[in-house]
Every structure is written in structure tokens, then in C-alpha cells.
């Protein structure tokens, strides 16, 4: 029973990881590509880590929770790096399918960067 649960979690996790990278490979512009890795891959690795917690807690010696640390770390850092990447792309004026925010704001952003 537990083995089935672990297997299902592993497959779900791996599938989401794959879908995240698929989004990275096939979507049209940088900003849409950003969505795949930040959401799907993070959740996929999270599911894999939960499967690993269950696996080691049931087969090893006692409860093993330190995989949770990696999960929390990923869930905190993935949006931060996504935000930084999007900011960088806006700064460099990377081509986009959607109309990018007006130039005035981008200029204000650039000025704020210099003033910091």
C-alpha cells in the first residue's frame, strides 16, 4: 500500500519535472518560458522529496525529515530567482510576445538600479 503511494508520488513528481522542462523548451518567449520551471519543476521535485520522506521513514531507522528542508528551500528560492530573472529580462529588454510595460517604467527601473 505504502509502496503504491510512493510509486505514484514518484511518477507524479517526475512527470511535473519533465513538464517544467518541456515548457522551457517549447514555449515562445522568455517570459512564458519562465512559468514552466518556476511552478511545475518546483512542485515535481517537492513531490519526489515527499516520496523520499515516506520511503526512508518506513524502511530506515525512524522518521527521516531532512528532505523537508530541501523542499522548503526550493519553495522559497524558486520564486525569488524567477523574479530576479524576469527583472533582468525587463532590464535587458528581452523580446516578448506580450506588450512589455511602458518604457517610462523601464527607464524608472534602470534609474533606480543606478541610484541604489
Amino acid at each position, binding site marked *: 500500500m505504502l509502496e503504491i503511494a510512493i510509486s505514484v508520488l514518484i*511518477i507524479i513528481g517526475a512527470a511535473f519535472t*519533465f513538464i517544467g522542462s518541456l515548457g522551457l523548451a517549447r514555449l515562445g518567449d522568455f517570459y512564458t518560458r519562465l512559468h514552466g520551471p518556476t511552478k511545475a519543476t518546483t512542485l515535481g521535485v517537492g513531490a519526489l522529496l515527499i516520496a523520499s520522506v515516506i520511503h526512508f521513514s518506513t524502511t530506515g531507522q525512524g522518521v527521516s525529515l531532512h528532505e523537508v*528542508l530541501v523542499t522548503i*528551500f526550493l519553495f522559497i528560492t524558486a520564486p525569488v530567482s524567477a523574479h530576479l530573472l524576469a527583472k533582468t529580462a525587463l532590464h535587458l529588454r528581452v523580446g516578448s510576445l506580450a506588450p512589455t510595460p511602458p518604457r517610462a517604467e523601464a527607464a524608472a527601473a534602470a534609474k533606480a538600479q543606478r541610484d541604489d
Partner: protein
Amino acid sequence: MLSIALIIAFTLVCAALILSLWRLLVGPDHPDRILALDTLYVNTIALLVLLGILLGSALYFEAALLIAMMGFVGTVALCKYLLRGDIIE
């Protein structure tokens, strides 16, 4: 049951690695490449976790944690470099 699931999972994660690698090579812009690197290290964490389950060793999590930290710092450093042309403020 578990071994079949692990084989499927390994295949999927390796395919994900190849797709990320492709994006890393193709680009076309710098942020794309950084994003591909970011995805590569998260995929590597997935691969390490799967290896840990397969071999029944908890040692791989130390490596996974280190890769998670180093990868995040690397992404931030590269973004900062592109944003300001400088890393240390």
C-alpha cells in the same frame, strides 16, 4: 512496483535534463541561458533524490541540499551581474 516507477521516473527526469540542456545551448538571450541552468540544477536535485531512493542511501540529500544552495546563489549572482555589471556592491 517501486522499481518500475523508478525506471519511468529516471527516464522522465533525464529527458527533462536533455530539454533544459537544449535550451541552454540554443539560448537565444542571456536570461534564457540562466533560466536553463537554474532548471538544470533543480532537475539534478530530482535525479539525486531518485538515486537516493534507488540505492537506499540518505547521503545523497546532503549533496542535493548543497546543489540547491549553490544553484540559487549562482542564479542570483548571474542575474546581479547582468543587472548591474557587478556582483559585489
